[in-house]
């Protein structure tokens, strides 16, 4: 079998991709400038209109451009990969960072460059916003104990107070069906029905007027591109480019105001909507939903009429992916580590089935898959919905792209997600129509509120550390929740467990308080008008999403470090309470000094040898289940701020989708009884701790599927490493495809594969601790890579380079 090679076929796309990749990430002042002016001019206006006027002003005045060769137009800021500033959410950190570092480009991780000439202007704008921002107001409301817990970092909610919500998929289908004029007509009709004498009517009037104004602003924004295209036609000589510009002018005259008539217009429509949503708010994970479904009618029609070719469809899609990649967000450093690598999590979902259980994969699904593979960009975040009747071809082509080795697409399992949604009261039709949002969260497009996957992170491993230390944080010395005793005091594992439950109850509550603080302020200060106009039933209810406008509104907290917690409990249970081979005092001491000395190292080794989650071993897996249920039993009692205000739900569930938060959450946590050293990252999502799933891929799935996944509707994250020899060649590839089918049948939620490269193997040579889970398999031979001697390791690296 020949390996499929994914290569860009269009020179235009190649050029545009090169341009966006070579751009040094920047910061653009324009949005900050215009929103400040708009707020100053409209101080007395109701908040909805103030927001609408701000968006209007930004869209009227920001720089726009059409690059040579672009087929899809529309930019977020003055250049690609340039982050606009959203001062209404938080400014204090900007001032502090500029004062300390002079710019945003001194960061060790993702850095951004603000042109020198704009620094003074930014500092001046900041003065207007100080004390008025979301962050400032949230901070006023935060109880002291929450502030303390945030410093200890047993909870982390910074992201929700320095940015908007994001994590939403608007009703693209509706826009494709009737254009923004249709949305305006809907709002107009509601406005006409209003009896101003009725309670709440005045507020609703302002909201509906804001919707009309914002939608008009988007239409006018598109018209600016039409004009620009016309102007540029005059300036270029190349007849092909001239023709393309004329086409762009024609497109932007029509959409998104009116319903698109063909595939090209439809793609331009969704881009305009998606783009302005990201100018309106700086929340990340704004997602595109089931693109292969809602674009398919246009595709089919154009193909049948012979007005489009598959090649051009792919080119358009690739232009769209470049646009998605061009979007970046500037976030405070305090939150930056929670998602490293300029992530924006703009999800595109393909595949899946309809409510009749019929598979809905179509030709466009394949083109999307192929085009994303060719681009090799980090956006969009491509998700594939799979189920027991997914076509063999689809599974194989998805596996083929995974094999190409850059982590995409992620697989999501209808077989558990749909029942899980039904269980939460989602209607049959809607549950089958679900989409992924961001990375692993699920929602019904156009009907679900923000952030189905939570706002506030709960650092479960820190919670365990606090439980072992009677609520005193060893790192900061802060006392959080005292009175349960420490490990030395517990006479039995049961007593320890009781303390754990008490601690979790306490931190869960704190995390909900953080959510409520952020939610009430987001609602009051920064309503998203465009977004609300595109989520059902906001217009009918006269409410923004945050006020309870969405049909469904359920959210989850984010829990980090589950595997480490389970493994820690297993060590304690085994060595301290069962075998009594280790004394509590001794363990606590070696944790406190990070396994220093020979005895410390011995204890560390002992702890590493204890049963580990991810190998199908019930001893520890059941502890993971129990530890997780402790949290579940708490969180299910809480409501979100939309409860009783319209949406179905209004409650909480769980999620293990904590992106790269495992790094900062680990940094603040001392050594733990799973043998993890201080400051090392925790495990990711529901994945086993790095290097402890030594039984291979089946053991991982066997462990993960023991968790109460059905209840974890906020999404479950599982990353799996696969050595290249297990996907290369026909026979191994077949097995890999069967592995995916087993994943579907086992009803695991999500899986993403990293195909190990020779580069990774080299990293493992240098950093063996972190790569204990790399298993190499060669005929008749199977071993943990890091336990081999160097010569053998080199052999294997050489084999990987040659053959796979």
């Amino acid at each position, binding site marked *: 079998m020949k390996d499929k090679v994914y290569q860009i076929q269009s020179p235009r796309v190649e050029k545009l991709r090169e341009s966006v990749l070579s751009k040094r990430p920047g910061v653009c002042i324009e949005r900050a400038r215009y929103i400040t002016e708009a707020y100053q001019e409209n101080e007395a206006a109701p908040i909805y209109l103030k927001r609408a006027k701000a968006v209007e002003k930004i869209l009227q005045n920001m720089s726009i451009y059409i690059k040579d060769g672009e087929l899809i137009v529309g930019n977020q800021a003055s250049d690609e990969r340039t982050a606009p500033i959203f001062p209404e959410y938080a400014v204090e950190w900007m001032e502090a960072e500029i004062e300390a570092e002079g710019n945003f480009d001194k960061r060790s991780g993702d850095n951004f460059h603000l042109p020198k000439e704009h620094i003074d202007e930014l500092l001046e704008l900041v003065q207007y916003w100080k004390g008025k921002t979301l962050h400032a107001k949230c901070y006023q409301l935060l109880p002291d104990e929450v502030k303390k817990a945030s410093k200890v970092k047993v909870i982390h909610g910074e992201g929700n107070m320095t940015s908007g919500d994001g994590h939403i998929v608007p009703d693209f289908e509706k826009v494709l069906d009737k254009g923004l004029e249709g949305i305006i007509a809907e709002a107009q009709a509601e406005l006409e029905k209003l009896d101003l004498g009725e309670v709440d009517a005045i507020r609703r009037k302002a909201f509906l007027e804001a919707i009309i104004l914002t939608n008009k602003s988007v239409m006018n924004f598109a018209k600016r591109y039409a004009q620009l295209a016309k102007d540029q036609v005059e300036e270029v000589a190349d007849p092909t480019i001239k023709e393309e510009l004329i086409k762009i002018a024609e497109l932007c005259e029509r959409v998104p105001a009116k319903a698109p008539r063909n595939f090209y217009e439809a793609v331009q429509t969704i881009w305009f909507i998606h783009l302005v949503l990201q100018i309106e708010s700086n929340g990340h994970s704004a997602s595109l939903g089931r693109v292969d479904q809602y674009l398919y009618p246009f595709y089919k029609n154009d193909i049948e009429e012979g007005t489009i070719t598959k090649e051009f469809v792919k080119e358009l899609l690739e232009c769209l992916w470049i646009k998605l990649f061009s979007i970046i967000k500037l976030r405070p450093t305090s939150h930056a580590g929670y998602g490293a690598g300029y992530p924006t999590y703009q999800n595109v979902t393909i595949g899946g089935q309809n409510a009749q259980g019929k598979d809905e994969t179509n030709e466009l699904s394949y083109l999307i898959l192929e085009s994303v593979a060719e681009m090799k960009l980090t956006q969009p975040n491509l998700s594939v919905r799979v189920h027991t009747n997914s076509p063999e071809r689809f599974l194989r082509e998805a596996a083929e792209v995974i094999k190409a080795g850059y982590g995409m697409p992620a697989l999501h399992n209808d077989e558990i997600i749909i029942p899980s949604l039904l269980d939460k009261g989602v209607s049959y039709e809607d549950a089958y129509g679900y989409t992924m949002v961001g990375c692993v969260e699920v929602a019904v497009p156009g009907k679900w509120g923000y952030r189905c996957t939570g706002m506030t992170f709960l650092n479960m491993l820190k919670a365990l550390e606090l439980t072992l230390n009677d609520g005193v944080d060893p790192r900061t010395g802060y006392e959080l929740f005292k009175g349960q005793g420490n490990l030395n005091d517990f006479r039995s594992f049961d007593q320890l467990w009781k303390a754990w439950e008490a601690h979790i109850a306490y931190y869960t509550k704190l995390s909900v308080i953080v959510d409520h603080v952020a939610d009430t302020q987001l609602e009051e200060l920064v309503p998203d008008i465009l977004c609300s106009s595109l989520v059902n039933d906001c217009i009918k209810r006269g409410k923004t999403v945050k006020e309870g406008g969405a049909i469904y509104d359920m959210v989850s907290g984010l829990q980090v470090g589950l595997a480490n917690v389970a493994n820690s409990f297993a060590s304690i249970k085994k060595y301290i309470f069962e075998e009594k081979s280790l004394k509590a005092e001794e363990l606590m001491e070696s944790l406190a000094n990070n396994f220093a000395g020979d005895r410390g190292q011995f204890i560390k080794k002992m702890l590493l040898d204890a049963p580990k989650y991810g190998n199908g071993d019930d001893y520890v897996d059941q502890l993971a289940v129990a530890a997780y249920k402790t949290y579940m039993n708490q969180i299910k009692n809480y409501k979100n701020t939309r409860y009783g205000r319209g949406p179905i739900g209004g409650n909480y569930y769980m999620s293990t989708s904590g992106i790269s938060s495992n790094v900062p959450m680990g940094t603040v946590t001392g050594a733990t009884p799973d043998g993890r050293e201080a400051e090392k990252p925790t495990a990711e999502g529901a994945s086993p701790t790095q290097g402890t799933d030594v039984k291979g*891929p*089946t053991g991982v799935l066997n462990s993960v599927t023991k968790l109460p996944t059905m209840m974890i509707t906020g999404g479950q994250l599982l990353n799996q490493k696969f050595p290249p020899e297990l996907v290369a060649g026909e026979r191994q590839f077949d*097995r890999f495809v069967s592995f995916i089918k087993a994943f579907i049948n086992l009803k695991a939620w999500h899986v993403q594969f990293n195909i190990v490269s020779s580069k990774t193997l080299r990293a493992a040579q240098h950093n063996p601790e972190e790569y204990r889970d790399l298993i190499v398999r060669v*005929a008749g031979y199977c071993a943990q890579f890091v336990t081999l001697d160097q010569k053998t390791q080199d052999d294997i690296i050489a084999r990987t380079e040659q053959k796979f």
Partner: protein
Amino acid sequence: MSEGLVARIESYGVYDGPGIRTVVFLKGCPLRCQWCSSPETQHRGQEYYYGEDSSKGELVGRYMSVEEVVEVVKQDMTFYNQSGGGVTLSGGEVLSQAKFSAEILKRCQEEYIHTAIETSGYGSWGNFKQVLEFTDLVLFDIKHLDSNKHLEVTGVENTWIIDNLRRAAQLNKEMIIRIPVIPGVNDSKENISQTAQLAQELGIKEVHLLAYHSLGREKYARLDREYLLENLESPSDEKMNYLKKLVESKGIKAQIGG
């Protein structure tokens, strides 16, 4: 039910039979193949396996009951179902723990798990027959057709082995001959084509050629044993393809790798 000595159990086994398999490596083998990549399974008893620092050895070999083994095998049922996989008993030598092996295989068959054994064929026919009764697929290793040469490189003659191969072939079991291709030892045109010839005679339809690799080498040091093939290189791809064609010329299906 009996107990047996198990060296290790490997999940997601992909080289010893069709689909995704769980491979149970039994401990104890009467042969001493110079190229053996799992020397830790040869000795019939528990032993220590030392790491680089040689401080704490890892104990190889665990006594397990049939049910314990079957429980582990059953964990991956979904993977077998989706891939057409199952369980493979390997070694060491399956025939050295024939009763234990037969019982595991029987229990697996009762659960409708596809069963395979990987064997050197070195054992009494009585033991072999007992195991074969519950085996769906036999992966039969043939190292050399020349008995003297066989003795030289594995420590035993091949008469028993060839005899067992002939008898087993008459049972109409699905059988695949596997030849570890060891340069300079058994990779001659003559030896390979004679083996293919024998397969043809016995009605065995498939031969797998497994290229020698030196990855097991480091294990010898950890067992404090000498590795005799220190400087041996793996056979080239051309060589392997040539041998494959050779086997195919006898009308036998051939495959490189397991």
